[in-house]
């Protein structure tokens, strides 16, 4: 049985890694639909995810052992179906971040025209991370504490010089149906609980763990909202056309003319987190496959899946817009089902009685 991931690592992963993907393509997507109120659908989504996370943590807290062990006891072999479904879901979930990162890579890392194979090397990383255990995700959460705050706040401070917050006013002027549609179609980047699920399911709950994770997620959510607000403050009405927000947000900082684009160094730091973020659902898929077929080597399945992902990206990068609208506008219910409804069902796996108080970590 795998060791439990400490609550601290889950909290730090929530605070320092999860917000990064929301700073990539989501800001322009939200700005296109809701203009200065882009923070409103984000707030609703984050509040929804926060509530869902609290519900899941409640389910973890109520009862003995890990939530996974309780699911195993209740579902028996039925748990394999869950593994199978989530293996497919995580693979499905990994598609957009990888495609986003590919576009982002060509736009941000190169002034020149790179070959279409350049991004192919990312799949080596994908295969490598896929071989790792879940504890790598937790350890990365710890490590991100030394990357995210430095890079994020440096960019925000630099961006503030060109930020006009009055462009966000008047508040809540966007029609409700636009906000609702923005919420509906941006389910994918906000599927945070689904990404935390494999970690939380293995959590050996101890007193205070729930608070730690909730606070971690809350901090991440505040960072995401702060970024959206500053982003719109910098780009105002043109925000909808500004893709890959975090690479551009600080470019108007006056000192950059003298010292060069040092903001890019902070962007690159965030990219490390973004690259890892894109690998996480892939790693989960490999772990699910490992559960379904224990004799099948994770390295082999990771390698095979990475090759499949590489070939898919190679053929599909020209149809990015089509894939994006397919995932965003047609297949969005999948994210609602796997990212919201199914995690909510975990409430059925509560042990019924309150857990005996453990010593705090």
């Amino acid at each position, binding site marked *: 049985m795998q060791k439990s991931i400490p609550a601290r690592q889950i909290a730090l992963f929530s605070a320092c890694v999860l917000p990064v993907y929301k700073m990539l393509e989501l800001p322009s997507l939200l700005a296109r639909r809701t203009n200065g109120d882009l923070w409103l659908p984000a707030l609703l989504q984050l509040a929804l995810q926060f509530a869902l996370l609290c519900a899941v943590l409640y389910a973890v807290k109520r009862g003995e052992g890990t939530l996974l062990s309780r699911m195993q006891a209740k579902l028996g072999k039925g748990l394999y179906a869950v593994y199978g479904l989530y293996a497919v879901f995580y693979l499905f979930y990994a598609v957009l971040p990888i495609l986003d990162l590919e576009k982002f890579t060509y736009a941000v890392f*190169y002034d020149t025209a790179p070959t279409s194979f350049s991004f192919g090397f990312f799949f080596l990383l994908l295969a*490598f*991370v896929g071989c790792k255990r879940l504890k790598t995700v937790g350890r990365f959460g*710890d*490590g991100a504490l030394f990357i995210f705050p430095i890079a994020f706040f440096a960019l925000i401070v630099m961006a503030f010089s060109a930020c006009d917050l009055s462009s966000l006013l008047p508040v809540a002027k966007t029609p409700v149906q636009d906000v609702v549609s923005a919420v509906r179609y941006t389910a994918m980047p906000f599927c945070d609980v689904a990404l935390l699920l494999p970690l939380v399911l293995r959590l050996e709950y101890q007193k205070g763990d729930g608070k730690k994770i909730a606070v971690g997620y809350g901090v991440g959510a505040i960072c995401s909202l702060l970024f959206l607000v500053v982003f719109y403050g910098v780009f105002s009405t043109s925000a909808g056309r500004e893709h890959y927000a975090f690479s551009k947000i600080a470019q108007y900082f006056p000192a950059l003319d003298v010292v060069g684009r040092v903001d890019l160094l902070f962007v*690159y730091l965030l990219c490390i987190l973004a690259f890892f973020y894109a690998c996480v659902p892939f790693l989960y898929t490999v772990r699910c496959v490992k559960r379904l077929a224990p004799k099948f080597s994770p390295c082999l399945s990771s390698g095979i899946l990475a090759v499949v992902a590489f070939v898919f990206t190679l053929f599909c990068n020209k149809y990015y817009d089509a894939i994006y609208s397919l995932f965003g506008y047609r297949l969005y219910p999948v994210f609602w089902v796997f990212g919201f409804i199914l995690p909510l069902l975990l409430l059925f796996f509560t042990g019924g009685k309150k857990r005996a108080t453990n010593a705090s970590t």
Partner: protein
Amino acid sequence: MNMKTTGLTGNLQKDVGAVKNILSAEDVLTYDFTTENGVACTLVYADGMVNKQLLGELVARPLSALTVQKDGGKVALSALQTQIATTVRFPEFKTKPTLQESVQEVLDGNTLLLVDTLPIAFIVGAKLLPVRAVMEPPTDVAVKGPREGFIEDIKTNMALVRKRLKTPELQMDTVRLGKRSDTAVVVCYLQGTTNPRFVEEVKQKLQNVQLDNVPSSSYVSALLSSRPHTLFRTVGTTEKPDIFTAKIAEGRVGVLVDGSPIALTAPFILTEDLQSSEDYFISPFMATLFRLLRLIALFVAVLLPAFYVSAQLFKMQLLPLGLILTVASSVRELPLSPALEMFVVLFLLETLKEASIRMPKYVGMSLSVVGALVLGETAVSAGFLSTPAIIVVAFSGICLYTVPNFVETGSLLRWLYLLVAGGLGTFGIVLLSTFLLCYLFTLENFSVPVLAPFSPLLLTDMKDSVVKYDLFGLKQRPKLLRSPNKTRLKKGD
């Protein structure tokens, strides 16, 4: 040595013959003499490894004057043994019953005393091995702090450790390694402070492998490493007894290897490389500042050439406009691409470094002149290399030496980064960094992650990582070492 265990016969001629049969080399000598009343004795020793004067004065002379008690014309064996033991007043004097053990002692530098009629061998510890003096190690020079360094002799090294840790808790367990070298490896730890699991694991790892020869501690280091092929060190090394004992006192296991001045410590974490013995002799603020400086210098050393190449090839925006123009004017007529140029300069640097280490000192000066002035200057004026490239590599080279223990790994990483920067630009740099981070996050030895206390996050252990707290801030031993004795500083005790 692969021999059948056989006992000694008590027949002096036969026993000496058996020993000489095994130790047939010319440097194994024998010295025959008799006691006052004619009992024959023989000393067997390896020439150049024993103190002959001591042997003569404390063993041969008293025994020659000894009158062996005889019972009805026959020698009483137990009485003879006692007589010899009381006559030879030597601090290291023991008996060995088998031929194999006796032979082993001779190879270790001890002297064998065989006495006619006695079926045992006396071992006289009159070892006098050629050793150099204790001096400051060239790899770990300190302006402030102790200057003693380990030498090749394990007994001296053990004494240097014992001198600093005068506690009965200090244990030194000897393990013999190497089928042919039979090298003594001493595992040092503090009982009650070091996690017993670490001690067991070290011993187990040492005993699990049959090596032919163990010429230095690097062999033992490979045995102790969880992943022998890793880029990063997973076992600590030091040449200084003060650092060695400090690490043992923290709860680590130390390993001394006979014939090697480099001692090993485990478990090892990467932040140990940032620490210098001087940090503990200056104010904690200065120590923190220097550690930060070393960390930044390390990143600069590894990444600067790569960023310079990718800025030129793929992302000019990384440089300010004025610098772009300067660089552009320098590289305008160069025949090499930026990546190839950087490869050439870095190759030059590494070659010069390699040559200067191995070259005799008096040739070193000429090498510096040829390398730095002739090669560098003429290569630039001939339009073969650009000045910025030489500056970048020189600065990177200097930065790398701020963390001497990381030079090999840093140098290798610099090549790797240069390779990916030349091919993929900053994307390659970021990708490789993510790859290395993921690798390091899972790299462990003795179940201790090498990136601790950053990942996993151990806040209390951070007090002596990049940040250095004062003495009173370091009340607890590092958590990651899981010591049974957690407290190392108590006030008013």
